[in-house]
Structure formats: C-alpha cells, structure tokens
C-alpha cells in the first residue's frame, strides 16, 4: 500500500489533481519524461501516468492526473492520508536533454503537467526554456506560477481567450520560431511538444519546414508498461516501437500519427460505458 501524502487540485474546474505519493524506489531513480503505473485496488485497471516530480530525500513521487475515465475519476476521490494499492516505476526512458541550449516546450492541457518537470530539469541545467502552455479556457489553466519559475519566457494561451493570449499553441510556436531566427537559422535546437495527439501532429507540421528537431511524448494504451505485451506499439519511421520501453519520447517527424490516433480510440466505448458506472454511493471508492 502506498500513502498519498499530498493532494491538491490544480485548477478551478478541478479537472486536474496533484498527488504526492510515498514510493521510495520510484523516487530514487525517477527522471523527467518517465512514467509510473498505478492501480487503486485489486480489481482496478493499471493506469500509466507521467512523473510530474519527485523528492529523493522524502521518497515521494508526484503525479498530476486529469479525471478522464473511470479509474482517474475514482483517483480524484482518494484523499490525503489514504492509500492506493500499487504504484510501480519509473518506466520508460527519461527525456534526453544532453547538449541542448535553447528549447521551446509546448504543452496542451494536462500535457503541461508532463512538460513541466522536463522544463524544470532543463532550466536547472542552464538550458534556455521558452514555454508555450495552451488550454481550452481559463478554468482549466494549471501551474501558472510553477511554469513561470522554470521558463525564461512563458506564453499562456486559451482557445477562447479567457486567460492569457487567445489562440492555439501552433500559432504561438510559429511566432516564437520566426522571431528567433538569426541569419536564416532557427535558434531553437529542439521543440518538445506534449498534449493531445492531434495537437502534437499539427505542432510537428509547424516545425518540419524549419528542420527543428521535435520530440513528442506519447501515451498510447498500455497494459504492463515493461515491454511484455506489445499493446503500446506505435509506428515510428516505418518501424514498430513499444512506447513503454522505446519511448515514451519519439521524433515527431517520424511518428505515424494516423495509426496512433485510431489505436487510441479503440477502448473508447468501453471506457465511456465504465465511467458512467462509478459507484456513487461509495463516492467512487469500491471498498469503502
């Protein structure tokens, strides 16, 4: 059993919640870009979520989880001081940042929670970070202060203009690239984009003509997260890769987005159905 030592909603709409969980093994090795798999109880699904932070001394790992399906909605009902039955990791490869000097990190929605620790680690290593954070509307904006702290330049935008600038991340990414060109050479040596698949696809289209190396973090459906089932396979550069061991970071210009987007929808019906059936009497907690 693993204790939740901190729980905190990150936005007004309470769509995304932070959990700091006691997990010394994970805390010891976790790095930005990796993920963990948790299970609420014996009958629960195994859910992969990104490492949003860690405290090696305290032996805790932090995750930021959006209530999407049944299990994540149930997780939101877990309180500080409660226990969850399992959390394992860290899984996947950490984000590579060796030798980088100037990076533009783009997050969309809950993707900002995944991009935040990456930006933080880059900032700590002295890499210049421009962060573009996009949200649908003001009520779901997260991590304003934290993002400001770790970036040299922060642009927050919303689709409806209710917070920050109005517009999509693609527009601001293009602007940033354009305004950072010296002698026809883009100054960003990398763009890191994390968000909905469709957003990452369009961001990849933005950077392609400039030839800027672009990395995205994928979250296909997973089962074991250790390379045992092949459920998480994605096509990258014409080859089949397992996102849980070969990724989750991949070269955006090599990823086959069409098959990725189709596969992600595979269990959608079942998930929507299951989400409707959360037991309301127990407030979502099965055993209590």
């Amino acid at each position, binding site marked *: 059993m693993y204790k939740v030592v901190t729980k905190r909603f990150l936005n007004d709409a309470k769509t995304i919640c932070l959990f700091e969980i006691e997990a010394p*093994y994970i805390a010891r090795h976790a790095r930005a870009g990796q993920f963990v798999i948790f299970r609420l109880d014996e009958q629960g*699904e195994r859910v992969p979520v990104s490492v949003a932070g860690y405290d090696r001394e305290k032996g805790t790992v932090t995750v930021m989880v959006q209530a999407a399906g049944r299990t994540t909605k149930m997780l939101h009902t877990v309180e500080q001081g409660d226990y969850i039955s399992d959390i*394992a990791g860290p*899984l996947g490869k950490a984000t590579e940042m060796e030798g980088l000097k100037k990076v533009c990190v783009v997050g969309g929605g809950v993707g900002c929670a995944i991009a935040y620790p990456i930006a933080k680690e880059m900032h700590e290593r002295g890499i210049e970070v421009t962060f573009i954070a996009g949200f649908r509307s003001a009520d779901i904006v997260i991590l304003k202060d934290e993002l400001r702290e770790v970036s040299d330049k922060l642009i927050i935008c919303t689709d409806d203009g209710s917070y920050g600038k109005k517009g999509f991340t693609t527009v601001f990414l293009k602007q940033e690239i354009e305004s950072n060109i010296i002698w026809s050479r883009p100054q960003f040596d990398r763009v890191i984009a994390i968000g909905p698949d469709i957003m990452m696809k369009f961001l990849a289209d933005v950077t392609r003509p400039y030839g800027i190396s672009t990395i995205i973090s994928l979250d296909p459906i997973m089962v074991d997260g250790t390379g*045992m089932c092949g459920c998480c396979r994605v096509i990258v550069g014409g080859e089949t890769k397992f996102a849980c061991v070969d990724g989750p970071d991949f070269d955006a210009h090599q990823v086959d987005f069409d098959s990725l987007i189709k596969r992600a929808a595979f269990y959608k019906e079942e998930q929507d159905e299951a989400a409707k059936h959360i037991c309301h009497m127990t407030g979502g907690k099965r055993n209590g």
Partner: protein
Amino acid sequence: MAAEIENLKAMGVKIVNNVIVGKSITIDELFEEGYEAVFIGSGAGLPQFLHIPGENLMGVYSANELLTRTNLMKAYREDYDTPIKKFNKVAVVGAGNVAMDAARVAKRLGASEVHVVYRRGKNEMPARQEEVEHAEAEGIEFNMLNNPCAILGDESGHVIGLQCVRQELGAPDERGRRSPVPVEGSTWTLECDTVIIAIGTSPNPLIRSTTPGLTTTRKGGIDADDMAHTEKVAVFAGGDAVTGSATVIMAMGAGKNAAYWIDEYIRRVNGEPKAEE
C-alpha cells in the same frame, strides 16, 4: 498457488511487489543494500510480431496482451475494471502451446469462430498433442499450411480479415522439419474481426541492459552455467530468462538447481561447511 506463496512467506521469504528490476532498482544496488546473491527469473516476455502490413490495426493483439488482460487482470469478470473487446471471429497466428491457450481463451470469451492459422502442417505444430486435442474438442478450427501476409482493415482501422497464402511442404531441412513453400496465386482472405499473434517471445532486455557484467546468448537469453551462475559474480539465473520460452517444469527445475548452488556459494563465501546432501 496462494497456499504455496503463504508457505514461502512463513519460511521467511519477503516478497516485494511493484519493483521493476533495472528501473526501480538495479542488480548492483541490490548488492549495495547487502544482498549476497541475486537470482534472475524474469521469464521470456517480449512478444514477437509478424512484421506484415496491418499489424497495428485495432483488433490485433499479441497473445501476451490477450492473456494478460484476461488471466492476470481478469477482464472477463464484471467486478474488475480491465477492458477487453468483444470479438466474434478470431484468427490466432502460430501453433505453439501459447497459441492453443489463446485460441481457447478467445472461444471461452464468446467468439463464435476461432481459427488457428499456421504456415506449416499439423505434424509440425510445436504445441503438445494434448493441447491440440483440447482445442479441437472446444471447436477451434485449424487452417494449416497458410502463411499470413497482411491484416486487412476497414476505414476506421478495425480488422476485417487476415490475408493468407497457401503453402506446400517442401523437402525436409537438416532437423527433419519440412519447410513450407508458397503456392503461387493462392492468396485468400480469412474473414475475422480479431487477430491474435502467438509466434513466440524472447527474453525482456530490461535486466540485461541495466546490469553491466551479464552476458547473453544470441537470442537474448542470459548466459548461465550448469550451476545457474552467470558471468557476473554472485548473480544466478534460470527459467525462460535463460532458455527462452520453455516450460513450467523446466523453470521449476532451474529454480531448484539455482537454490542449491546459491546456498553452496553463500556457504563458501562465509566459510561455512557444505550442506548435507
């Protein structure tokens, strides 16, 4: 099984869950924590795929995924949250014990038709005779001498069929297995909504890639001698992690053998007398 685990615990074995060796902790760190010997029994988990078009369509599973979802994560039970797709017509590619298992599980999960597709003939099937008979008794159909060449899908990316080429058996190879040769112009499509790939696994590279000093065989198995000792001092290994996919009986034997030699090793290191036979 549960009783045996309780038994082990009663004997003083501590079981630590949710630790992925190589990720949560490395073998070298286990030694730093004071362990004197380490045994690796991590199995052969990495599923092989066919590398044919359509393998990423929706409705294509590795046998590992299907069996994990059903056996370990109990997708068939209402009180568990694991999702699994309802399927109707299933093609299982491969003809080993795992393929037989997957075919029978698919049938029991409610498939109306389950076909085993294999590129060689019935006599060449690696599955145990008994397993094949059980499968036949449960109504599994066998499409021998058919080599899958593509998985077909509809516009939304769901599987609608498995395209196969019929095969003939050629001359026996050096091991006496008659290798199949394609019959020209014999391409046909087996209609199905699910394809399960069960053509074998190889050892997971996670531990070997994070443990300096371990050496591996060409197929990715960990090198270990008759005493289960690897190339790395105080690290022992056995089971599928060494042999590649084999059997429960062999894995249990390997565990016993390793236990004996680990005991010997620790006695020797600590200058204690040999164990009584």
